[in-house]
């Protein structure tokens, strides 16, 4: 049966049936394979993610050996049993069960793509203790120094993030300054030649801590009492 495109023969129901049958069969097979591979790999992937988080966690909270997860929302800190929507807050404790610090993820647009970090906050000294770059696509040798340059990472051993008197933000905003001109504890010495990447780090730390530090300070007892 030839089709020259000008006069259409009536739709061949056998053909329609065979098309539907094929598509249906392939779709079913496809669904089966996808679901199967998803279910098989899910526990492995979850474990990988857990290991990755803990590796970063114990790096940014010095002295921590165990962890507990919380959810931080605008009205407080909740244990993750309660079904509340918010940011995940990781708390790190030492062997005796004492709170060593908390950690959260922060992200901002960098030079190439989004930079995502985990930063550790010590609620007793009210300062940021360390950062770990989780994901970035910055220029190798230049922008990627934010993860590798020791001098830059030294910014974060005691970066001040003190809650202000009114409890609605930070006393001093975390700001980036030109390389070599850091004079205050809440400033970040940028990497010369990688200002965009450095500014991104400063921006995400500032945005995140302005929001979370007051809440953490107010609800510290919830985290301390956990273990």
């Amino acid at each position, binding site marked *: 049966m030839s089709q020259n495109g000008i006069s259409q023969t009536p739709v061949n129901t056998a053909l329609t049936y065979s098309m539907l049958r094929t598509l249906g069969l392939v779709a079913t097979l*496809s*669904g089966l394979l*996808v*679901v199967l591979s*998803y279910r098989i790999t899910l526990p492995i992937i979850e474990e990988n993610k857990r290991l990755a988080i803990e590796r970063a966690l114990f790096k940014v909270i010095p002295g921590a050996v165990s962890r507990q997860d919380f959810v931080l929302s605008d009205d407080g800190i909740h244990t993750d049993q309660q079904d509340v929507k918010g940011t995940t807050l990781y708390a790190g404790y030492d062997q005796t069960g004492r709170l060593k610090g908390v950690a959260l993820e922060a992200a*901002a*647009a960098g*030079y*190439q*793509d*989004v930079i995502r970090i985990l930063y550790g906050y010590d609620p007793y000294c009210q300062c940021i203790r360390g950062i770990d770059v989780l994901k970035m696509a910055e220029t190798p040798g230049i922008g990627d120094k934010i993860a590798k340059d020791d001098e830059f990472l030294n910014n974060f051993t005691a970066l001040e993030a003190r809650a202000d008197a009114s409890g609605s933000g930070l006393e001093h905003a975390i700001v980036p300054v030109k390389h070599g001109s850091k004079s205050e504890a809440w400033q970040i010495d940028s990497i010369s030649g990688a200002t*965009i990447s450095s*500014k991104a780090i400063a921006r995400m730390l500032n*945005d995140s801590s302005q929001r979370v530090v007051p809440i953490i300070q107010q609800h510290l007892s919830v985290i301390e009492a956990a273990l």
Partner: protein
Amino acid sequence: MSADSVTFIFLNAAIVNNFVLAMFLGICPFLGVSAKRETAWSMGLAVIFVMLVSSICSYGINWMLKLFEIEYLRLICYIAVIASAVQLVEMTMKKYSPALFRALGIFLPLITTNCAILGVALFQTSREYSFTQSIAFSLGAGVGFTIALMLMAGLRQHLELAKVPSVSQGAALTMMLAGLLSLAFMGFAGLGAQYG
């Protein structure tokens, strides 16, 4: 949720992180269609349209997939939507502008396998853009793709009159040119950051 403004996202996708020259998406049509300015322009417009349509559809699909928690079907759904969107554009073009349809020839169905279109959908999902952000992103990506294509077409048309060694003619030369363009575009880093 990304906090970037729409202006920043648009400029970023179009120029700073140009889809072709920085993200390496859409290379196949870039090689194939960039020989003449007219075809490059038509291809660019078709891509902008398809990107916009796919972006909107992908946003909707992603919302539904999250609702039913079947995110593992995301890739299959996206590619199905893109193929349908291209089919739609093809039929519309055939009806309203047959000359354009003939000029584009095989390239129109090839937009389906254009990684740039799927790239738009995948990136806007992984960066968790809102609806307006997604629109800005897809428009920026399409415009950027068109810019790169037009630049390359202009360059290649000029080079047709130049003496080029036979071994480098065609793909090798296009790649070298693309490398130079890419290098030049790196100078745009930080553009629009004040809107970010």
